Every structure is written in structure tokens, then in C-alpha cells.
């Protein structure tokens, strides 16, 4: 009986503990009620919790989904990857490009009733520079001072002209309410995790960490068709596993997946009448980049031969199931004004590549089918299934051209550390988001390597001169011509082999909501402030 008694006690204690624990959990819920079906609540799946509510500091993509709907930006990116007005009505350069002037709308309001004014913009920019916050600090490199001469004018005095300055700052810099953020003191330590005041179409009201984030409509949002969004509430629900998120969408638990549907899974929605897929292009692209510190890869003939050994069409067909665009030079076709259409991708021609290498003096003395000195490692992030597959295909096709490649795909952190330290021959990876070609060219080809992503480790005075010259060109037409010229030079030099521009597909429940305005890339995709302000429930 004694044993039996002890077990009973143990079970009873277990039950009490379980109920007690669950009680703690329930008490933690600080969310509001609401979310009845008549309220038109848009539920969006996200993959992770918000890690940082301070928009000036956050570096997380999923954070930006929520923060972008709360804090306005001077400019937004439209469906065609062009910058469009948001808080700023317009911008112009003065003083030979050394002053950028933004003219703001006067009808944006913070949710506590105060107007959004030039002082808020000045404050946001100055604090980012002071504390070197987020990735916007780099966009403000050229700023000497910021002035707000009147409530709707902001001027940035630059140390030197930089053509896409206004575009970069306008798109990336969140504007925060000075009257809320200033009292917080050191903004690098300000968590901003309660009592939110925003001026976007929705503002966070409550959260149940690990589960959902509830955003209420801002009743005064001038960019929404009716002066406020048609949806009264946006709820982000957290699904770390994309398969679970897809099931939740199918099941009606959410109405939109914030994250793109994997190519391999897109077909599973084909037979679902309610679910629609919206397709957008990427703002980055997949590429093979050659380390110029390798004595053989420093040889233009070798890089060109490698480019001729990559069957990009087959890769797009096999890896993306046809859902991607081919590229010629380093400028993505999504930037149609800057893309040099006069250049053609290197043809897939392993025999031609072999002939080129023979002509350049390379030999296969031991007759093993490979040129003696041409053996390279290709490094990649093995968590990227597409790129890993690309490396396999590249290895096979390069062998036909007599070039031996080793697959050196590794775990993500190791990969990033290797790329940072230049420990690779060929880097196979995917650029994330370039919102304009100039920033891209500066980051990837300048000797000073300002963004840390000059994976070529290129140190070319000629290329530096071309980039710096273009960067300070304020005449739009001359600027475009100079970008196109760099596009051509990089292509001729074959510093990289562009592989493809991926398309992203976002799944949503079209039987319940319509009117999304997707933006390119998976950075914000369907959940830009502008898009959410335009979503309407299906009647």
C-alpha cells in the first residue's frame, strides 16, 4: 500500500504542477480580446518572434514586417523596384548634389495625435549616426549635418555627392516619433517594447510572445484609399516551421504567409481554390564569385572559361523549376533602367571553354581529363538547398570543360566566416537585397570593401575610379550610362557569373482578402505598409 500511496501522490503532484504551470502561462497572456470574424482581422504567418522593437536598431527581416507597418519611411519601393513617395512627397538635389532636400507630406499623424514633422526625420537620422544604429548608419556615411528649416522640409548636407543617397536613406530609414524616443536617452539600449506610438497604417497593441502580435488600425493613415486601412486588425502568428505555416494557411488559421512558399511546395496549392500565389522578383540574385587572390582565378581567361561552363538555363530549369530569370552582367533585370541589355550571358560551351584555356596556355599533362592547375573549391551555405544543388550541377558541367571543382558547402556560420576571411576559391551564394545598383557596385567591387561583401577581394584602381565617378554623377542619364558601362566591364572581366534572379511566391487566402500590392524580394513582399493599407476583405 505504501508504494501505491507514493505513486498516487506523485501523479497528483504532477497534475497539480501541470495545472499550476498552465495557469502561469495563461496569466502571461496580455493580449487584447477581439478578433471576431466581423472585424476583418488579417492574420499573417511569420517565422519568428520580434527580436527588437526598436526600428532604428533592428536588423531582422521578420521584425521589419511588423515595424514597417508602424513607422513611416520617406520613400517606399513599388512593384517595379522604383522608389515611390511615402512620407516624402518629393526629393531633389541642390548645390551640385551636395545637398539632398526632402519635402514631407503634412497629413501624417502619430497615433497619439501629434503630426509627423521634419524634426522627427532629423532626430531619427541624427540618432542613427550618433549610435551607429542598424544598417541605415552606412547609408548616412556622407551626411555632415541634417536640418529641418520648417515642419515639412528636411535637408541633408553631404560631404560629397552620392547619386542614390536620397533613394537609399528614403527607403531604409524608419522615422520614429521624437517626442517618444528622445526621453528614452541612449537609443542603443531602448527596447521600445510597449506603449507603441506609430504613424503607419497599423500599430502594435499587444503581444503574446511566441504566439502572436496584434496590430490595431491607425485611424488616420493618408496613403490608404479611405484615409485608413480597410482591415481593422492585423495579427502576426508565429510558425517557425514553414511546413506548419503552409498547413495553417490551408486550414484557415492564417490568411497570408509572410514568408515565400518554397518552390518545391508551390504546386501543392494548385488544387486549392481559395489559395492564390502572388509572384514577385528578387532584389538580389544567385552568383558564382571568383576570388581574385587565387593566382589562376585572377586570370580573366579562366574566369571566362568558368562562366562558359555553367549551364544557367539548365540550373533555372532544374533548381527553380523554370521559375527564375537569367542574367548577363551584375545588374539585375529588375532594375531595367540600369541593366545593360547590350551584353549577352556567356554561352554554355564546355568545349569552347576548353579551347580558351588551351589557348591561354593551360595543359593537361597527365591526361586525366583536367587541366593540371585548374582545381578549385566552391564554397556555399549548405542550408541553402538551391545553391547546394547549383554547386553539384556546376561541378559536373565544369568537369566537361576540364576544370576540377570540389564541393565545399558548409554550415552557415562557417560559410559566412570563410567568406568574411576570404578563405575560398569560388563563392556560390545569393545576394539578399540590393535596392539600387550603385550601392550594390560599391559594396561588391570597391577596394575599400565598405560593406564587407567584396567577395572577389578585388583591388582594382580602374574599377574604383569607375564606381566613384558614377557615384558622384548627379545627372540621371549620365548616371545610368555609367552604371551600364560598369555592368559591361564586370561582365567582360567575368568577375562573377550571375546565375539567376529568383521569383518569390507568396500564398494568401483569396477567398477572404484581396488588394495586396506586393513589392519585389522577400524582404517585405506582401507586407509593406502600403500593401497592408490597401488590403480589403472579400465581401
Amino acid at each position: 500500500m505504501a508504494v501505491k500511496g507514493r505513486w498516487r501522490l506523485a501523479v497528483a503532484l504532477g497534475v497539480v504542477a501541470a495545472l499550476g504551470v498552465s495557469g502561469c502561462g495563461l496569466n502571461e497572456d496580455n493580449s487584447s480580446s477581439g478578433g471576431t470574424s466581423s472585424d476583418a482581422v488579417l492574420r499573417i504567418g511569420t517565422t519568428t518572434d520580434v527580436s527588437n522593437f526598436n526600428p532604428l536598431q533592428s536588423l531582422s527581416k521578420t521584425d521589419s514586417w511588423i515595424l514597417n507597418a508602424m513607422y513611416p519611411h520617406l520613400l517606399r519601393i513599388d512593384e517595379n523596384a522604383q522608389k515611390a513617395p511615402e512620407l516624402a512627397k518629393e526629393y531633389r538635389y541642390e548645390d551640385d548634389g551636395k545637398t539632398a532636400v526632402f519635402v514631407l507630406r503634412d497629413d501624417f499623424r502619430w497615433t497619439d495625435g501629434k503630426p509627423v514633422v521634419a524634426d522627427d526625420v532629423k532626430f531619427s537620422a541624427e540618432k542613427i549616426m550618433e549610435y551607429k544604429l542598424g544598417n541605415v548608419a552606412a547609408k548616412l556615411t556622407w551626411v555632415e549635418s541634417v536640418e529641418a528649416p520648417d515642419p515639412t522640409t528636411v535637408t541633408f548636407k553631404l560631404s560629397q555627392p552620392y547619386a542614390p543617397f536620397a533613394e537609399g536613406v528614403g527607403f531604409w530609414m524608419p522615422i520614429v516619433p521624437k517626442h517618444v524616443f528622445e526621453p528614452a536617452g541612449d537609443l542603443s539600449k531602448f527596447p521600445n517594447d510597449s506603449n507603441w506610438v506609430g504613424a503607419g497604417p497599423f500599430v502594435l497593441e499587444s503581444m503574446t510572445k511566441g504566439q502572436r502580435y496584434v496590430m490595431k488600425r491607425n485611424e488616420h493613415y493618408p496613403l490608404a484609399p479611405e484615409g485608413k486601412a480597410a482591415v481593422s486588425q492585423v495579427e502576426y502568428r508565429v510558425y517557425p516551421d514553414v511546413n506548419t505555416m503552409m498547413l495553417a494557411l490551408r486550414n484557415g488559421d492564417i490568411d497570408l504567409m509572410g514568408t515565400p512558399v518554397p518552390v518545391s511546395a508551390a504546386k501543392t496549392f494548385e488544387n486549392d481554390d481559395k489559395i492564390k500565389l502572388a509572384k514577385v522578383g528578387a532584389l538580389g540574385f544567385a552568383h558564382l564569385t571568383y576570388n581574385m587572390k587565387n593566382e589562376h582565378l585572377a586570370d580573366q581567361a579562366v574566369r571566362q572559361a568558368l562562366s562558359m561552363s555553367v549551364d544557367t538555363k539548365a540550373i533555372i530549369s532544374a533548381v527553380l523549376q523554370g521559375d527564375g530569370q537569367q542574367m548577363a552582367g551584375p545588374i539585375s533585370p529588375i532594375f531595367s533602367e540600369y541593366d545593360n541589355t547590350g551584353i549577352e550571358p556567356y554561352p554554355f560551351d564546355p568545349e569552347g571553354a576548353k579551347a580558351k584555356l588551351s589557348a591561354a596556355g593551360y595543359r593537361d599533362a597527365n591526361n586525366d581529363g583536367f587541366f593540371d592547375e585548374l582545381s578549385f573549391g566552391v564554397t556555399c551555405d549548405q542550408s541553402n538547398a538551391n545553391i547546394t544543388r547549383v554547386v553539384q550541377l556546376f561541378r559536373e558541367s565544369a568537369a566537361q570543360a576540364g576544370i576540377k571543382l570540389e564541393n565545399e558547402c558548409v554550415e552557415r556560420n562557417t560559410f559566412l566566416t570563410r567568406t568574411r576571411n576570404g578563405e575560398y576559391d569560388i563563392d556560390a551564394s545569393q545576394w539578399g537585397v540590393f535596392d539600387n545598383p550603385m550601392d550594390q557596385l560599391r559594396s561588391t567591387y570597391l577596394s575599400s570593401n565598405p560593406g564587407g561583401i567584396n567577395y572577389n577581394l578585388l583591388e582594382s584602381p580602374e574599377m574604383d575610379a569607375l564606381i566613384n565617378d558614377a557615384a558622384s554623377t548627379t545627372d540621371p542619364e549620365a548616371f545610368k550610362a555609367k552604371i551600364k558601362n560598369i555592368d559591361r566591364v564586370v561582365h567582360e572581366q567575368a568577375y562573377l557569373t550571375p546565375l539567376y534572379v529568383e521569383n518569390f511566391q507568396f500564398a494568401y487566402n483569396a477567398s477572404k482578402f484581396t488588394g495586396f500590392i506586393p513589392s519585389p524580394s522577400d524582404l517585405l513582399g506582401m507586407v509593406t505598409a502600403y500593401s497592408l493599407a490597401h488590403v480589403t476583405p472579400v465581401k
Partner: protein
Amino acid sequence: MVRFVLSRALKAVLTVWIAITSTFFLLRLLPGDPTTLMVEGDMTPEMQAALLKTYGLDRPLWEQYVSYLRELIQGNLGISFRQIQPVTDIILDRLPWTLLLAGCAFVLTVAVGIPIGVTAAVNRGKWLDRALQGFGISANALFVPSVAILLLVFFGAQLGWFPIGGAIDPDTRGTAAYLSLAHHLVLPVLSLVLVQLGPYALTLRTNMIEVLGEDYIRAAQARGLSARRRVWKHGLRNAILPALTLMGLQLGTLVGGAVLTETVFAYPGVGRLIYEAVGQQDYPVIQGAFIMLAVTVVFANALTDMLYAVLNPRIRL
């Protein structure tokens, strides 16, 4: 008994210290640092250096270690790199969910595992035993995420009996909230139980068979004790001792399994926190969570040992 408890407690503290030290150094042996994952933005080397300084990662390793231990003794697990919040708060926010999930799975595993193990042993060699053994071995080979996603697809999406992910419907209150909690708990618990049950039931079966052949069981039979009393009172009490050790050890794997289960079921526990923190190399959160898990497992094992001593007085020697 006091000496026994004291010696166990000392061993437990030593184990936790080893766990803390190895976690600290292993994390720092990983390639890269917390700024590595941020390099794809426009982060200049100066900004990376500034961030590392903010995190205190620019100091010599031993200095970081000593300072970490000093803070830890005061109950301070540090500040999360990404969330700029005390790690203790972040973990305590998530801990109840993991305790609930792992606790329910643990209780259910034991509650189901004992009858299965005993029934199989009593019916040794018969079809029931073979069926239960087959189930045990198959369950042993199951992989948590695969089971989880299969359960979700079938019971969640196809039949619609259970919700797809989450821990509770945040809009419910009172009794409805408890029901919603239980409703959300079924599939994650089931996936953990399915994976844990096999080894537990099989161990118990083996022990039980051994015990049922002992002299004292035959003596009990000779004394005219009923089969039910022989098996459940005399047999089980002895057969359960090794299984008890297994239970303590299994708590570790249960918590490990919770990392994957919580991720698939979008369950907001410590397991998912670890999954997210590893992806972001948020050292303080990973360290804090691991220490908390190590303490849980060590504590459970120490408790098992003491329970063992209660059930089997010979251990106290």
C-alpha cells in the same frame, strides 16, 4: 541519508558547473561570432567591432568566462544580444510552456509505459507480447519532427480535430482557455510520447521478466498470493528501479525532443527559443537556456537517485 543527499547535491553542483563551462567555451569555438550573421547588411568592420565591444566579446576569453561566472552566481544570466532584454526574463517567459509540454509527456509516458511493459512481460512470448515489442521497437526508431508533421497533417489538416500549431487561442478566457490549452497540447504531447514510449516499455518488460523469475516471486506464489498482487506489488516495485533511472535520463532527451517538437508545433517554449537563438548566435540566450536545461536534468537525476534510495534501501549504503 543526510550524507547521501549532501553528496548527491555536491555532485549535482559539480555537473552543472561542468555543463556551464563546456557550454561557454563550445559556443565560442563555433566559427564566426554574433556579428557574422549580420554581414550581409551594410555593416562596416567598424560597426562590427563596435557591436562586439557592446557584447563584451572583444575581451580575452578567460576574462569573459570569469565575469560570466561572477554574474551567474548573482543569478544574472546576461542580456540577450538580439532582444536587449535580461535572459532570465526571456527564459522564464518560455519555461512554463516547456515544463507543461515535457511534464505531460513524461507523466503520460510513464502512465502508459508501465502497463504496456508489465502486460508484455506477463504475456511473454504470446502474440500480445510480440505486438507490444513490435510497437516498442518501431516507436524507438521514430524521429520527432517526422512524427510531428505527420500528426499535424493527419489530425490537424485532414481531419481538423486539432489546431495547427500554437499553445492556446489567445482570445479565450477562463475554462475555455484551459480547454484550448489542452486542445493545443494533444498533438505535441502525443509526438513526444510516441517517441519516448518504446524504450521505456521495452526496458520495463525486460526487467519485469527477470524479476518474475526471482525466488521471492515464486515464494509469494507458494504463499498463495494472487497473480495480480505478485506482479503489481512485488514484481513491479523491483522491476521499476532500472526503469526509474531511465526515466531520469529520458527527461534529458524529452527536453531535447522539445526543441524540435516545439519548432514544428509552433509551441512557445524554451526549445523553440534555443532553435531561434542558435540561428542568431545569441550566446547569452543559448547559454542561459542550456544552463537551465542542464539544471533541470541534473535535478531530475538527483531526484531519481533519491527516489531510488527510498524505494531500494540498499542504495543508501
